[in-house]
């Protein structure tokens, strides 16, 4: 994966992600988001925490225009997420979906990983190199010619990540990337993400993982941001965690 240097002077650039007053109701009338505000600077890694049904996935699906806001606005590196900009927005923001089965649909792993970059105009040797690099980054190179449907849950999750890494997005959005992963794969994923140095938004229920990867966390509950700050401070606030159905794993201490 090519590296994009994380700029240490973010103030000169528009925020990588800007969400203002975002509200959204599903077509069945269920209101999932009630005014989310979030600003992520280029190069930042931010964890999105919150209980089941808090609206995390719904929020994520606004970041590349899959859902259209009911109210409020979303911008990616200064570019408003609107119909006219969708292609560029989707090139910049790569989303790894919560369920790998939603993401994988091609007959072989290789074709599935090639699908995104080919859509964005890559061809021939360049495309092959991109696919190979993405598969190597998640340790799935030897499964390139198998059907994604025949892989284990964790292997599918890794391929799903590779499909997005291959698009080489500026902003990486991961919806519960560590679920179903064996401990070693989970650590390797962390290494891949740290090595990429991309702006990253990671939804997770795995609080120690959030602490390891993301200096900053936002806590979402019932469709609003209820806390936003350094991950360590957030996780040390036992009362806050308890109020939002979160808790550190047994035996895990912050000191």
């Amino acid at each position, binding site marked *: 994966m090519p590296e994009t240097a994380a700029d240490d002077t973010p103030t000169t650039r528009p925020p990588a992600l800007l969400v203002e007053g975002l509200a959204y109701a599903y077509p069945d009338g269920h209101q999932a988001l009630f005014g989310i505000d979030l600003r992520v600077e280029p190069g930042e890694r931010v964890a999105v925490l919150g209980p089941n049904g808090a609206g995390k996935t719904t929020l994520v699906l606004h970041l590349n225009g899959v859902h259209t806001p009911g109210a409020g606005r979303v911008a990616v590196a200064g570019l408003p997420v609107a119909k006219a900009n969708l292609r560029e927005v989707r090139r910049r923001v790569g989303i790894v979906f919560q369920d790998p089965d939603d993401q994988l*649909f091609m007959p072989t792993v290789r074709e599935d990983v090639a699908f995104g970059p080919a859509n964005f105009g890559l061809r021939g040797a360049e495309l092959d190199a991109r696919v190979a690099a993405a598969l190597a980054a998640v340790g799935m190179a030897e499964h390139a010619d198998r059907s994604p449907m025949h892989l284990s849950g964790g292997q599918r999750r890794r391929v799903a990540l590779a499909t997005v890494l291959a698009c080489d997005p500026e902003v990486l959005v991961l919806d519960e990337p560590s679920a179903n992963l064996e401990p070693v794969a989970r650590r390797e994923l962390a290494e891949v993400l740290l090595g990429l140095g991309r702006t990253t938004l990671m939804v997770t229920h795995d609080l120690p993982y959030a602490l390891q990867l993301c200096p900053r966390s936002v806590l979402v509950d019932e469709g609003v941001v209820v806390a936003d700050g350094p991950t360590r401070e957030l996780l040390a606030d036992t009362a806050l965690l308890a109020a939002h159905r979160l808790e550190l794993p047994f035996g895990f201490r912050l000191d």
Partner: protein
Amino acid sequence: MGAGHAHLLHRPGDTAVHRLPAQVKVVAALAVVLCVVSTPRGEFAAFGLYLLLLACVWALARVPPGWLAKRALIEAPFVVLAVVLPFTAGGPTVGLLGLRLSETGLLAGWNILAKGTLGVLVSLTLSATTSPRDLLVGLQRLRVPALVITIATLMLRYLEVISAEAARMRVARICRGHDPRFLWQAGATARAVGTLFIRSYERGERVHLAMVSRGWTGTMPDAGRAAAPRTWLAGLVPAVGAALVLGTTLWG
């Protein structure tokens, strides 16, 4: 989970038929179907020859007839129609095994049965030897409008999504003590079918969103390769054969 569903109608292989560019196969299949449809229903020998032609292609592609027969069952409703027609149509009648059957009905039934079966067999031969992806690329090369290709993509995807979802739900039911062999549990199966459609639709939507997120705009990125004139000639041999059969029946 959903193992094996990826190849519902496709039978991967590496034969001359499989390697033929999809656009050539699509044109050949279309031409054969056109010949079959325009053959007068009384020309029984012609239909036999078409079947023989198909059998040659199956032998070349190493597709066992049993595999095709199982999938050809989708035409069962038409078979029923074909069987009913001889009893319902009017006009002169013929005696068969002591039954009075309408002659026009009998011929009309045969017409549906022969042409329907051959049409289904041709389509199955095409899908068996062409992966869904190649098929789409082939259509694209034939300059089929993007909208039609999108609809075709969605149909292919839903087919696989539905069979995968059905397999999962079956496993989930069986794990909770459901035994579909017992008649009194048929209700659960019926309800499952209803749920299946809603779930498949919603999963299909999510797969679609994930495709869109990776920059999909409705066309397959891989434009395939152009077929050389010689490939076209080789691939169209069955179509030429069918045209010859049709020609001789019409003017012979």
